[in-house]
């Protein structure tokens, strides 16, 4: 039972980071190789606040989480300002470099344990806290996406130039997506540090970043419910198939290619598992069928 609860907590923690990445990649169309770095910032800041500062627990933990989120967010502003006005490749390369840079820096700062890591962190994270934050942040993500700010992000993903012509400040939209995703990754990192009670730089390297992205892709770009399903599957599957650990990533890599080439909408097909989401799908199908019928009738009418 405790084992299952452990997995549940890991799912819940990862979900927060993946929600952020979903906003950035799934809805705004930006790809980051370095969100592990933002998680690392959150984790380490949280570790410092929770074990180096002598504060009572009810203050220390929330402060740690907020500090982690803020730090990650601030760093992301720096990266965003430099690269979001340029072509997409620059942003990707910069995030890749950022992820590596964080790892190198952390490896060399002995105050936080260096490459060997930092053990014996206090365990503050509980199942209820994670669940509570998950609910809050899923609603948070939903609220952003279903607003004019969220629609503008999607417009950036669909057709950036047309979005600009429609008065969308695409730089600002991308920046908001980036900062929110970084802050969420920071929160996830903070929760992680105070759950596993041990952190080291290699936990947040590019492998972690790509892990998170894979979760977004499997669930389907542009679907929050997809993100939840994707995270659930990809965090629990490895535990179930522990014997095949080596091949897990081989299969994931292949699966990503197949998904992108065959079915980019992922598992959920870009659909939201909500009443309005499902209604939308049926309405779209009906409307399309109707249109095709009308066009066919017109053609036959012409031929007659």
């Amino acid at each position, binding site marked *: 039972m405790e084992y299952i609860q452990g997995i549940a907590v890991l799912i819940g923690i990862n979900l927060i980071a993946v929600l952020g990445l979903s906003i950035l990649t799934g809805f705004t169309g930006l790809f980051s190789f370095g969100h592990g770095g933002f998680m690392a910032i959150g984790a380490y800041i949280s570790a410092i606040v929770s074990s180096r500062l002598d504060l009572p627990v009810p203050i220390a933990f929330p402060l740690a989480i907020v500090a982690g989120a803020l730090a990650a967010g601030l760093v992301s502003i720096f990266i965003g300002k430099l690269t979001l006005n340029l072509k997409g490749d620059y942003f990707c390369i910069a995030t890749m470099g950022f992820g590596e840079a964080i790892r190198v820096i952390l490896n060399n700062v002995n105050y936080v344990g260096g490459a060997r890591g930092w053990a014996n962190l206090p365990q503050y994270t509980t199942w209820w806290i994670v669940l509570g934050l998950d609910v809050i942040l899923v609603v948070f993500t939903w609220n952003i996406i279903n607003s*004019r700010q*969220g629609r503008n992000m*999607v417009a950036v993903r669909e057709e950036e130039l047309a979005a*600009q012509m*429609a*008065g*969308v*400040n695409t730089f600002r939209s991308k920046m908001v997506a980036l900062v929110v995703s970084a802050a969420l990754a920071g929160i996830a990192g903070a929760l992680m540090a105070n759950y596993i009670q041990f952190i080291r730089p290699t936990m947040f390297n590019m492998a972690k970043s790509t892990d998170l992205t894979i979760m977004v892709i499997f669930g389907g770009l542009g679907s929050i419910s997809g993100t939840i399903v994707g995270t659930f599957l990809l965090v629990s599957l490895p535990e179930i198939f522990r014997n095949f650990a080596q091949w897990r990533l081989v299969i994931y890599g292949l699966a990503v290619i197949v998904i992108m080439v065959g079915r980019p909408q992922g598992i959920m097909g870009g659909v939201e598992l909500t009443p309005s989401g499902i209604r939308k799908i049926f309405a779209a199908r*009906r409307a399309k069928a109707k*249109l095709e019928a009308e066009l066919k009738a017109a053609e036959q009418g012409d031929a007659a």
Partner: protein
Amino acid sequence: MTEALPLLELKGLTKRFGGLAAVNNVSFKVRQGDISGLIGPNGAGKTTIFNLITGVYKVTEGQIEFQGKPIHNQEPFKIASGGVTRTFQNIRLFKNLSVFDNVYTACHLSAKYSLLHSVLRLPLYWKEEKILKEKARSLLAIMGLEERQDIAANNLPYGLQRRLEITRALALDPKLLLLDEPAAGMNPDETEQLMRIIAEVRKMFNLSVLVIEHHMDLIMGICDHIHVLNFGCTLADGTADEIANDPKVVEAYLGAEEEK
């Protein structure tokens, strides 16, 4: 009688790419309420001018003034929110979004609520979202797209896609609408329909239009004023009659004697 301030004025506009002047010292005015045409052979610089007006390109020399104030070199989104919107030669709809969402998204400037309002779902969010939905719905109804509002944009037939693009451009309450070859690929019937729509839109929304087109029937049919380009330079400027009878234009472009 002094002429009223032109809505849009290009003054000595020049754009060079490396050594090539795609647009060379072009000047013209679009008067308030007019439907103006911008014509010329392919490669004459017409779309480049649109890109300059909408801020996609920076000008090399010259000025662009909108309502008397310079707008050249501004950020594209600022120019759009200032009242100049456009459609594209090769349709740039939000393909995977529904027809409704394409317009709904573009309505965003009619609301003022901030990210905080969205996240916390404060009352202003609800109030303004309702307004935006209503606005999108009414625009789609006016343009005859209401029935199709749930279809994904890229499932629309070509003619309706063009209409959707115009609808989306209208969502920003523009004062000047730039249409880049809106009749491309249309048969004569569709072109007629489009002409009527453009005329209606001008009246209903009280705006001015600048059209790039190759379909001469459309240009001659609805334009109050025409500017002719060739190799990036101004060839002629005047009313439809003046242009049709200008020997330079006839020779370089219309070829009325030899062709159809």
